[in-house]
């Protein structure tokens, strides 16, 4: 992949993340103004569901902000852009990710977590089981990644 192609790719990524952050901020403001937070926090199950999903979204939003900042820095500096391009297309990193199953586990964990959040409104036991599964999968993936990073 050439630097120009990579530049276009990260610009698209930045736009997508910015849209996500904008929607997240807009929904948060609307919920705050309408007083939905106060209403659902009185009911334990709904309060737990909303707190968990909001915490999860807050974490995702924070990660997005950091990544957008990183992309902005890379777009301003050619050396950083090349370093980021090399890092993302590094063959050793790709091999480690393949070996620890990150390409499958990460999207799967995200889907399981989303299913867990959705089912929080229906059955708390099922949702906690789903969330625990996702966390365990991610932990296993991290341990394997550390192991293969040391090995190769």
């Amino acid at each position: 992949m050439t630097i120009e192609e990579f530049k276009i790719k990260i610009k698209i990524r930045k736009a997508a993340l910015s849209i996500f952050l904008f929607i997240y901020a807009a929904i948060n403001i609307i919920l705050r103004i309408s007083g939905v937070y106060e209403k659902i926090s009185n009911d334990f199950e709904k309060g737990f569901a909303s707190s968990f999903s909001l915490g999860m979204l807050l974490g995702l939003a924070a990660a997005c902000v950091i990544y957008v900042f990183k992309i902005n820095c890379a777009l301003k500096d050619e050396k950083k852009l090349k370093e980021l391009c090399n890092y993302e297309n590094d063959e050793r990193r790709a091999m480690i990710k393949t070996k620890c199953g990150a390409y499958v586990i990460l999207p799967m964990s995200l889907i399981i977590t989303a299913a867990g959040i959705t089912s929080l409104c229906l059955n708390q036991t099922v949702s906690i089981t789903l969330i625990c599964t996702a966390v365990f999968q991610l932990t296993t993936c991290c341990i394997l990644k550390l192991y293969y990073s040391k090995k190769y």
Partner: protein
Amino acid sequence: MKTRIPELRKKYRLSQEALALEVGTTRQTITSIEVGKYTASLPLAYKLAHYFGLSIEEVFDFSDISFSENNFK
């Protein structure tokens, strides 16, 4: 697999980071190749050899690889 990368880097006064930037990889990958933990792919081996103006055989040591007797020679 043994390589001559550390020797060539010293000769041309190159840091691992600078070499990684030139050949399109990371410093960690260069370190792993140098210590023999990781075997570079053919495109990366070619890029490294081409960067130093040498052939792949001159940069990487293939003496520990056994070849089949049934070749086309």
